[in-house]
């Protein structure tokens, strides 16, 4: 199913499970381009505590595919205009 396009110069970010409760949102637009390595800082700026509380154990996808957050010395990934990023914390219950 196709998803709404973000505004020009932006990418879409989706929040799932505890990321939704932390941000109070399912989806929003953020300015693109953005380095994937900086994504954590950008979100921390908006949602204090999200790095430790959510991002530290969540996986991240860009355009529905898993991405590793690059560490120091590794090639960075650039989130481009129109991309869809998702923050997926593990769900453990059942």
């Amino acid at each position: 199913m196709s998803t709404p396009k973000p505004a020009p110069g932006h990418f879409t970010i989706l929040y799932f499970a505890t990321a939704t409760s932390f941000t109070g949102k399912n989806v929003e637009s953020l300015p693109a381009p953005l380095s994937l390595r900086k994504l954590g800082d950008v979100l921390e700026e908006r949602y204090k505590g999200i790095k430790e509380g959510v991002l530290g154990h969540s996986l991240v996808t860009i355009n529905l595919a898993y991405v590793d957050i690059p560490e120091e010395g590794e090639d960075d990934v650039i989130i481009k205009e129109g991309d869809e990023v998702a923050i997926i914390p593990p769900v453990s219950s059942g």
Partner: protein
Amino acid sequence: MQHNSSEEHHSNGVAGRNEGQGGFSRRLTDEEFDRYSRQMIVPGMGKEAQLRLINSKVLIIGAGGLGCPAAQYIAGAGIGTIGIVDGDIVEPSNLHRQVGHATSRIGMMKVDSLITHLRDLNPLPTYVPYTFPISHENAADIISQYDLVLDCTDNPATRYLISDVCILLCKPLVSAASVQKSGQLIVLNCPPTPQGKADKKYSPCYRCCFRKPPPANTQLSCGEAGIMGPVVGLMGVAQAGEAIKILASGLHLPSAISGTTTEDDPHNLIQPTLLIYSYDLNAAPGPYTFRPLKMASRKKNCFACGENSPQTLTLEGIKSGNPNYIQFCGLQTPKATLPAQDRITASAYHAARESGQLQNHILLDTREKEHFSFGSIEGAVNVPFGKLLMKAATIKRSGGDAEEILPVKSAEDPIFVVCRRGLDSQEAVEKLKELGVDQGGKRKIVDIIGGMKAWKEEVDPSFPFI
């Protein structure tokens, strides 16, 4: 996979032409033929696939919201041997989602209750009950008896344990999870690949996807956070669907896949799909309701399955308590974090109110508004914990007036904080002090020990605690 034929199914069977060996070379019994006919005629199934199911052994760990629906379809499909592990008993609060149990079986072991239901559904499979929880001591002995494992458990420590043992024993794992309004499903280690084989050709384990567990204070259980029946039910049914598909098609056999899939194949299991289900109480299904996310293949540096993992993870180690899953997931019993002078028992708070010693004060109830809606202490104002933290963060960032965080304005009145069980309230007290709401210690901010649970136990037994 067990390929040996099983005698009890041979009653009227004779080997047909052009058929495989062992268990695949017999006819179905009349009963099997009738019972499984509707699924056997589905394109891609047929007799051989049905015999594969009949010769398979599946272990379902957890007989709850995921395990019940999963087990129904696993049993219905005719999987030959079905093991079920769970140490809990059936409670009334389980029944809105744990559809394999029944009102008449409240108090029974969940495993026995579910098997009662399954035998009625399909008496042909062999059911193996394990009426105790899976543990680091018994996991390998149990899992080794099966061809495929369904993780239907309810906590991260067990999820890491099961995934680790499945890697070490080379078993495919169908993992699902669900809480509140979210569900997740993924097929791991399929085709099963020995530990230490870790280039891009191999399927990942749970740790490859989720390297670290969430901090203990953010781990939500269905008991604490709630769960919508259809959300967890859908995940459990989908789990059975994946397991049946894998076993019927032999996808769990290494030869079925090696060399035949590429990274670009959207159906390959080496980069499995993590299916996310988000259920929105206020909206119709939309583009975000189901998201299929493509995971990465096995990680080279994974603790459990990566290149050097044989040095870090062994069956002997797990059995003797290494790694320590409980510690890894930070699940030690929560300790009191606040000093005694900042805390009061529910009964002492009640006594102070009754005696008139405590006139003007603010009582903050930090439970979710749904919990609050069932009842609260007279005069309490509801500020859900999450909202309180958000407000605190905003005030801290923009330097606003700390008093803004309180829904009631009165600069001197002492503040009492109550939550559900007494953990969030302590954190709330700390946050308020951090913001200076205590005016450098002049104003009292006090935690009610044990929350509304204690209030019910110590003060008002009729309180509708949920």
